[in-house]
């Protein structure tokens, strides 16, 4: 199970990489393993500002469907265009090619609530 040390995490199994007021968001290796073969990623919230903890899209595996949650409040400024044609990228490379959205952070202080790699590792035990 890969949990890169340079990322921050949520208990909902999202990862976030903050670079100034822009952040990239995806789901963790653990999440993709639990879901199994991902066949459909639906994110139709580009341009919207969404609160921390709210749903910004859904991800479907063959047998299950799961919501995608905002790790911190922000505006969705870009959706990974690769996911429409190749959703399986989320299985094969969840932390790089399989990223979900880029967001513009509205409240940087929320980052304090995120989990470090060590803390996230503990939650998935």
């Amino acid at each position, binding site marked *: 199970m890969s949990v890169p040390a340079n990322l921050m995490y949520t208990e909902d199994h999202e990862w976030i990489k903050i670079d100034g007021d822009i952040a990239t968001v995806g789901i963790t290796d653990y999440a993709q393993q639990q879901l199994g073969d991902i066949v459909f990623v639906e994110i139709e919230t580009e341009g919207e500002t969404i609160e921390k903890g709210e749903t910004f899209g859904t991800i479907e595996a063959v*047998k299950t469907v799961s919501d995608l949650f905002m790790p911190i409040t922000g505006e969705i400024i870009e959706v990974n265009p690769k996911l429409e044609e190749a959703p399986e990228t989320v299985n094969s490379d969840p932390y790089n090619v399989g990223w979900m959205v880029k967001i513009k952070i509205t409240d940087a202080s929320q980052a304090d609530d995120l989990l470090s790699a060590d803390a996230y590792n503990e939650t998935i035990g």
Partner: protein
Amino acid sequence: MKETAFTKYHINLGAKMAEFAGYHMPIEYSGIRDEHITVREKLGVFDVSHMGEFWVKGPKAFNFVQTLTSNNVADLLPGKVQYSCFPNGKGGIVDDLLVYKVDDETYLLVVNAANIAKDWNWCESHATEMGLEIGKDFYNASAEICQLAIQGPLALKAMQKLTSASIEKMEYYSFKKCDFAGIKDAIFSTTGYTGSGGCEIYVANEDGSKLWDAVFKAGEEFGIKPIGLGARDTLRLESGFCLYGNDINDETSAIQAGLGWITKFVDGNDFIDRDVWQKQKEEGVSPRLKGFILEDRGIPRQHYKVVNAEGEEIGEVTSGTMSPVINKGIGMAYLNEGYWKVGAEIFIQVRNKNLKAFVAKPPFHKRE
């Protein structure tokens, strides 16, 4: 949780495990997609030991099976298998099953794991009424038998290596008792629920390890893989086969489910609910179970509503998935009259959206 003769193999191979019908079963190994494609193109192995097996024997056996099941057992020859169902006396279905005829006085009924107790209770009361001796003429062997399904276009070729009996040319839905992988009296059956051909092999629990090892060794050169219950579901759905509990249940009739072909209204086949189902067949019945393919991107799932272009509710999805072969959402739904023709436009309500779909006849993977 109960274990099958193969549970330890699944765990050792690192399968994702879960409880199914009270058994500790493998859900997936290498991933549902990979397993699905392996079965469609090569061959894969399913542990189906959780299925139930009832023996029916003696001079009253024929009458019992003929009355309890909807298909015509008089048409069944020794060494052949029949797909059938138990009508429930109220126009619904107790379970779907396979009927094996060994000879005029020996039948094997193979039923769904989740329904073993329910089927047994249903059959037992009728068996007693008809004068069969429980435990002798009607016998539950479910706990003693383990079973592997080897499915896929290369399955019979690979399995031929394990027996001197001629199996490669066996007709679909037939069986023979043979010496298989050194196991005496194995039942080798050209059945299965994937739509890709292959076989199912029944042996005693104590011979399970021997069977598993031999099957994987024989299949190695053909690319054999273990397959979990996840792919079992996508394979059967892609082929349009009903799953009890999803597509058929105690409230649905065989006629509604499109299983008219396993209900034979002929002289001498006075099965339970014959009158009700014959009336439905002659006068029509709605809703009916139909297959469909999604045109829009998305995945239909059980209990999603089906609507027409005006947004009026016209049915409900009973099974749905993403077809790994055609890469589209596929499913089955009970639809009201007026939406039964192939090509009819329907809409599946997926969360807050109506996704366009059209009625289609399975198997879905052989269309394009």
